[in-house]
Every structure is written in structure tokens, then in C-alpha cells.
């Protein structure tokens, strides 16, 4: 058995499925004003933050859970969830890693994310979020030298209130849709990034999300601001323990790019997908939205979605500044009973704006996958272009692959091109690979990786290798 095969066998089961036995502080079960006050209080938030939350909660009370999506799920009892859960040791925030609970360090080591800087991942600064709190942020000093702020959002609310106040909710307002509003009311932690004018962030910034406690919803909030002429590349990774019940993850991510700034946001999402019969797994209902506020700004989303029982998200770009660029690269893989309804929205408002969408969907087993996207060119967005390509690959006749693009063009000087294909892996390709000594599974892995290459190329090096492996593992058992 060669090394690759061994590796695959080792990983056959969800390798991040362990849970850490750690003492927690939890908010009382349920959703009400007291719980929101509890969260705000424990985080020692200023008055305006609590107001922000309560305003969102008021709005949330009148909203109804949407049900237009393709993957249906049993009704979530929002009163049966814990909205805050944190390791007890985090109550008084440890000042350095030496004071951090060894159990937490151990957990992240097991996940392959060492928090000690001597064992650091090359050139990546990590913010580790465990359930509802951020436990550690690495490389802070080095970043501070350049004026870059990279810290948990709860900390930013205390130390940089003027920035948070100005930008929080400016892309995803408190009056947005159901899950986004819920997040605004109860969000617990997440990352905050501010890149000052003209700074090119010297390393990749990364957040690692981990759901540990059971019966808990994770509601994190990420806010990234790239000031004029700056650049940042941000990575996000996620895992969760294997549990029989479904867990909710409803995050909000806001990106703001000012004049000439560029934000590159990459996600490798590997939440627990449930077992082979579709029991358990994470509901990943995330709102991600980027605003190209300034001229010549650029926001690029790259996502590799392999985990979660249900993935339901549309990372979007609002191209407001003239000459701004939005990009979306996605690979979504569903196997067994996983379901995904994902895609993007490109809203063209400024002149000469450009967007590009490359989406690759692969469904196997009894899974179901939908690409749903919107390209909207407003009447003022002169000379704008969009190019969309969505390809789907089906394996077996129990799965489904759907494409639902919405295309709106209100400007005669703009061009939109959209194409989509659906097919299966051809017998010829498989035959060719097997003839050269690959076993069927390796052959499929190779072909699928080739199918996804356009998107994988967009990922930063360290992630690309991981993602490539993930693609192979996710399709385990879907052939032969």
C-alpha cells in the first residue's frame, strides 16, 4: 500500500471528530433579552454595543425563518440552544499562551494548528476561536509594528470602538435576513482585522473555528477593513466534534475595501458532515458580504466547502466603487446525505466594475447540491462585465446537482456571460487513468482535482495542499 493510500485510510473517518472535555461557562438556555444582556455583560461591552444587539433582537422577533432554499431541514428550536459557551479558564483572559489551559493547547495541536509561535505555521498569524470565545491570537506583536490590528472582535470593541462603531453592520445591517439578524443579536466572538493605509500585510491572517460544546450555536462575527491602498489575505478553517444532533453555525462576515485596497478571503470549511446515514452534522448558515467601497478596490472569495450537513451561504460582493472587482471561486463537494445550497451575489453599482464567478460542484452518494447565484448590473454601472461559469459533476444516480442563476442586466453598455454544464466523469478518462496503474479511487481523485484546479490555484499554498487532500477524502467511498 503506498503512502497516499495509507494517508487516505487514516483519514477515512472524520479525523477532527473528537471532543475536548473541558469545563464550560454557558449562558442560560434559550433566546431572550436577558441572554443577550448576559453575553454583553460577560464580554464587558459598552452601552452602544448592547443597544446594537437589542435593536437586532427586536427586528429578529418579527422575522420568519426563510424556507425557499433547496435543502429542507427540521425546524430549529431557537429556545433550545445555548447562545454562549466558553471554557471556564477563559473567564479571566489569560495574558499569554503560558497561562492558557493546556487542554486547549492540546486541542489545537491535535487539529494541526499549533498556537506556540516556535511551532508556528510558516508565516501565518492565527486567531483561534473555541465555541464562543477567541482563545489565542498569534504574531500580534509583529503585526502591531506595521499598525495592523488583528484581534478578537470582543477585544476590538474595547480597544478600537471608533472603527467597530463605524463599520460594524455597515455591510450586513441589523435589519438583514433572519440568520444575519440573529447573529447581530447574539454574536459572541470572531476576528477583527484593520489594515492601515498603504500597508501590505506581510503574512496570511487566519482564524480557526472550533465548535466543541454540545447543543450550542456558534455565532461568530468577522470584520475586516482594508484601508486605502492596502492588501490582506485572510484564511478561515473550521471543524467540529462528531455528534448525533445537528448544530447551528450562523456567522456573519463583513469585508470593507476602501480605495485601491484588496481583500482575499479564503475558506476551507470542514465542519462535521454527519455520518453515512445523514445523522448529525453542522448546519452552516453563514452570511458573508464584502463591500468594495472605494475606487479600484477588489474583493475575492475563495471557498472549499466539504463539510457540514447543510451548507447554505452566498458570499457576496457589492461593487460600489468605480473600477472595483469582485471574484468568487468555489468548490463544493457533497457526499452521503450532505446538502449544499451555495453560490454568490455580485451587485454592480459603480462604473467599469468587473466580476468573475467560477463554481465547481461535485455531488456523490445521496447528496444534493445547488448553485444559486445573482448577477445584478444596475442602470448606473456603465461598462461593467460579468463572467460566470458553473460546472457540476455527478457521481451516481441518487444524488442531485442544480443550477439556479439569476441574471439581471439593466445597463446596455454592460456585458454578462453565463455558462453552466452538468456531466459525469467519462468512462474514457477513468479507463485511461486505470490503464496507467491507478486504482479507481485514485483515478477519480485525480480527475476531480483536475476539475477543481482553477479554484484550487486561487488558494494560498498551505491551504491548497490541505484542500487538495480534502477533496480526495470527501469523495471516499463514492466510487466502485
Amino acid at each position, binding site marked *: 500500500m503506498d503512502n497516499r493510500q495509507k494517508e487516505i485510510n487514516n483519514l477515512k473517518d472524520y479525523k477532527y471528530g473528537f471532543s475536548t472535555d473541558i469545563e464550560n461557562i454557558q449562558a442560560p438556555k434559550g433566546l431572550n433579552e436577558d441572554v443577550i444582556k448576559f453575553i454583553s455583560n460577560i464580554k464587558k461591552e459598552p452601552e452602544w454595543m448592547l443597544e446594537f444587539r437589542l435593536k437586532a433582537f427586536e427586528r429578529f422577533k418579527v422575522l420568519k425563518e426563510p424556507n*425557499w432554499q433547496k435543502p429542507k431541514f427540521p425546524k430549529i428550536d431557537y429556545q433550545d440552544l445555548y447562545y454562549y459557551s466558553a471554557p471556564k479558564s477563559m473567564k479571566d483572559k489569560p495574558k499569554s499562551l503560558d497561562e492558557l489551559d493546556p487542554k486547549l493547547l492540546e486541542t489545537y495541536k491535535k487539529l494541526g494548528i499549533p498556537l506556540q509561535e516556535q511551532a508556528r505555521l510558516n508565516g501565518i498569524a492565527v486567531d483561534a476561536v473555541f465555541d464562543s470565545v477567541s482563545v489565542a491570537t498569534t504574531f500580534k506583536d509583529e503585526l502591531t509594528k506595521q499598525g495592523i490590528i488583528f484581534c478578537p472582535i470582543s477585544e476590538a470593541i474595547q480597544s478600537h470602538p471608533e472603527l467597530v462603531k463605524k463599520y460594524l453592520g455597515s455591510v450586513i445591517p441589523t435589519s438583514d435576513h433572519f440568520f444575519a439578524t440573529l447573529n447581530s443579536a447574539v454574536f459572541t466572538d470572531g476576528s477583527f482585522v484593520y489594515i492601515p493605509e498603504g500597508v501590505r500585510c506581510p503574512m496570511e491572517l487566519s482564524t480557526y473555528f472550533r465548535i466543541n460544546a454540545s447543543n450550542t450555536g456558534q455565532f461568530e462575527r468577522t470584520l475586516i477593513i482594508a484601508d486605502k491602498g492596502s492588501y490582506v489575505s485572510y484564511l478561515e478553517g473550521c471543524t467540529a466534534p462528531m455528534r448525533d444532533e445537528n448544530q447551528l453555525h450562523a456567522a456573519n462576515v463583513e469585508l470593507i475595501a476602501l480605495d485601491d485596497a484588496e481583500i482575499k478571503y479564503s475558506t476551507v470549511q470542514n465542519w462535521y458532515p454527519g455520518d453515512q446515514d445523514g445523522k448529525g452534522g453542522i448546519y452552516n448558515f453563514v452570511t458573508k458580504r464584502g463591500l468594495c467601497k472605494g475606487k479600484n478596490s477588489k474583493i475575492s472569495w475563495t471557498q472549499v466547502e466539504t463539510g457540514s450537513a447543510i451548507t447554505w451561504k452566498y458570499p457576496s460582493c457589492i461593487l460600489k466603487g468605480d473600477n472595483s472587482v469582485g471574484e468568487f471561486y468555489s468548490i463544493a463537494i457533497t457526499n452521503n446525505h450532505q446538502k449544499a445550497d451555495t453560490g454568490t451575489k455580485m451587485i454592480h453599482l459603480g462604473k467599469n466594475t468587473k466580476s468573475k464567478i467560477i463554481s465547481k460542484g461535485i455531488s456523490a452518494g445521496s447528496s444534493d447540491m445547488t448553485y444559486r447565484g445573482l448577477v445584478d448590473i444596475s*442602470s448606473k454601472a456603465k461598462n461593467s462585465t460579468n463572467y460566470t461559469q458553473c460546472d*457540476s459533476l*455527478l*457521481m*451516481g*444516480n*441518487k*444524488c*442531485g*446537482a*442544480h*443550477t*439556479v*442563476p*439569476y*441574471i*439581471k*442586466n*439593466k*445597463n*446596455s*453598455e*454592460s*456585458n*454578462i*456571460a*453565463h*455558462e*453552466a*454544464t*452538468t*456531466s*459525469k466523469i467519462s468512462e474514457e478518462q477513468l479507463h485511461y487513468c486505470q490503464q496507467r496503474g491507478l486504482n479507481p479511487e485514485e483515478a477519480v481523485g485525480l480527475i476531480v482535482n483536475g476539475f477543481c484546479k482553477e479554484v484550487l490555484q486561487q488558494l494560498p499554498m498551505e491551504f491548497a495542499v490541505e484542500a487538495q487532500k480534502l477533496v480526495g477524502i470527501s469523495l471516499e467511498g463514492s466510487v466502485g
Partner: protein
Amino acid sequence: MKEQLQKDFDNSIKNLSLSQKDIEIKKFCLDNFIDKGFPNKKEEDWKFSDLNQIIKNNIGELSFYNDQASTNKVDTSVFVDGLEHNKIVFINGRIEKIDFEYEKKDQIEIIDQSETINEFQNSNSLSDLNNAFTNKCFKILVKKGYQLAKPLIIYHTTNSKIWSKNINLRLNFELDKDSSLRLIDLFNDASEKNFLNIFYNLKLKENAVLKNYKVDKFENKNIKYSFNNIDQDKNSISETFILSSGSNFSKNEINCNLNGVYASAFVNGVFSLNNDKHHEIRSIINHLTENTKSYQLIKSVLEQSSKAVYQGKIFVNSDAQKTDGYQLSKAILLNKESEFNAKPELEIYADDVKCSHGSASGSLNEDSIFYLMSRGLSYQQSRELLINGFLLDVVEKITDSEIKNLIKNMLGIKE
């Protein structure tokens, strides 16, 4: 609107000799419609065309009762010249004439089916409205092995006697084994501000061939909705061509069920719109068994503040292996105010399929205009040449040469 509906309904029932059971069914449909009202943009299928709003803005209050006691004089000047054809003439929604003069009388049967109710899979409130108010419905049966010698033209004519009226009509067609029919729907309106609600149910048996051409060319201020439900058995072929141009608002829906192996469906359409017209084509092709094929091509040329919408869906059932589905929509926007919306959708549950769709919209290619102008054409000529060429692509898909020429003439396209 509710009282108006109720009153008009009672009036139209009075003049019909219906059994108690039929009246109850019609009443049930009416209640359904009162409950739901006209479709609005909250419904996914009407997202881009809010019919409720359009009727409000263009017509205001509608009335639903049509006095069908007196006959209308058939105006022969609307008939198509230079093409021998069979005729069905509707005037203000009333059938005035059915004439199959070129055909063998025993091969075509016309059956009165006024009591039967439409039951479509994805019915909206308009099918309820249609069921409640349609008072005469015929089924045209083409018998086994008979192929009509001449095309059948259905004239949908309205005259200035009606105003702010809703007209409902329904026709059923059945093409038995090995038969064929060429069917042209020709709209000719001298009235204003009416809402036409048309339902066709077409059944194609083994090896049957149906060619349906819907031509809405003449300028008018009416609002039209037309729904074609096509069921196809083994080896049958359906071809639908839609020329969408004349009315203020028009929505054509095609729902095609490919039930038998080797059945194929073609849907082609042209939008040629100006002023503030708003037209839509929505097609749903259901591939329900293996080895079926569908092909769709929709092109739009949009001037002034006109708006075109194309919603196309290819559905492939898990049994429908070896499906071949293709869909392409293209639009040229000629004015700042014009708008094109598309939702080309694929819903696929089988793996051994070949399905693709494409959609493109944009302005007229300046490079092409420059090329033509550098060869001595004026700007206007180059523009016309390019637009004609763009639309000709779809017209050339028409497989019947007689009708192809007829439509080319109507569009003013010369080769």
C-alpha cells in the same frame, strides 16, 4: 375585485347549461382565485413580472363577464394571404368559426369538452381563473396516422367592443399515433386594455409531430398570458416557436413533459420589443424517462425602456439517463433604459446526462459595426444588418419552410 368576480361569475353561469356538479367545481376554482388573486412578485415564478401590479397599472379594474350570446362578424381582412390554411377564429374570446376545409373530414374530430377542468401540475391562480370563466372548450383530435395537409391558424382577434375585460379561453389537442399538426397562433387586436388568459393542453401520442408557432406581432395595448402544457409519448416531437413583440405585456409559459423514450422538445423564441413593453417566456422541460432530448434558444432585441425575461428550467428525473438538454439565451440591449433578466435553471438527479445552459446579454458589438461601416454601410444599415442576423439565427430553426417565410416576412427580415 371580489364582488365584481362574484357578480360576473353568477352572470356567466346563468347563461350556461351546466350540471350542478360542474357549477360546484367552477365555484371551487373561483374561490381559489379569489383567495389567491393575480400572481405577484412574491411568487418565485413571477419574480420578474408582477402581474398583479401590471394589471393595476395598465388596466385598473377588470370585469370578467363576457356576453357570448350574439355573434361577431368575422373580418376576413385579418386572414393570412398566400398560405392555404385551416382556420379557427376567436373574436373577443368567442369561437366564431372552425373550418378544416383542406382536410379529410373523418380524420379530425372536434369534441365539445366544456365540462372538463384543467388540472396542471404546477398550476397558478390563473388556471383557476380560466377554469371558473371558460364557457366553451373544444378538443381537437387528429386521428391515427393522419397528417394535416395544411397548417391550422388560430386567429385570436379582439375588436373595440371590449374594454377592461378578462377573456379566458382553452383548447385541447390530441395527436394520435403517427399524426402531425402545424399550428399557428396569430394575435390580432383592435381592442385596448384587456387581459387574455389562454390555456392549451396538447397530448402527443407515439411518433406524433406538433409544430406550434405563436405570433404576437401587431402593436396593441393588451395583456396576455398563455400556458401550453405538452405531454409527449415515445418518439414524439414538439416544436414551439414564440415571436413575442406586439402586446404591452405578454407571458408565455411552456410546460413540457417528456414521458416516452426518444421524445424531443424544441423551444425557440424571439423577443423584439420597444417602448415600455414587458414580455416573458418561461419554459419547463421535464425529462422523465431515458433518452430524451430538449433544445432551447431564446434571443432578444430590446429598445427604449422595454424589458424581457427568460426563465427556463431543465428538470432531469433520476430515471432519465442519457438526457440531452441544452438552453441558450442571448440579449442585445439597445437603450440605457432597457432591461434583460434571466433565470436559466438546471435541476438534475441523473448522472449520465449532458446538460448545459448559457446566457449572455450586452450591447451591440461596436467592432462589428465598425467593420460594416468601413465597408460602406451607414450606421443605421449596419445596425439593422447585425440585429437581423442575430434574430435570423432563431427563425432559421423553424423546420417548416412555408411558415419560416411567413414569419421572416412579418419580421421584415430579408436574406
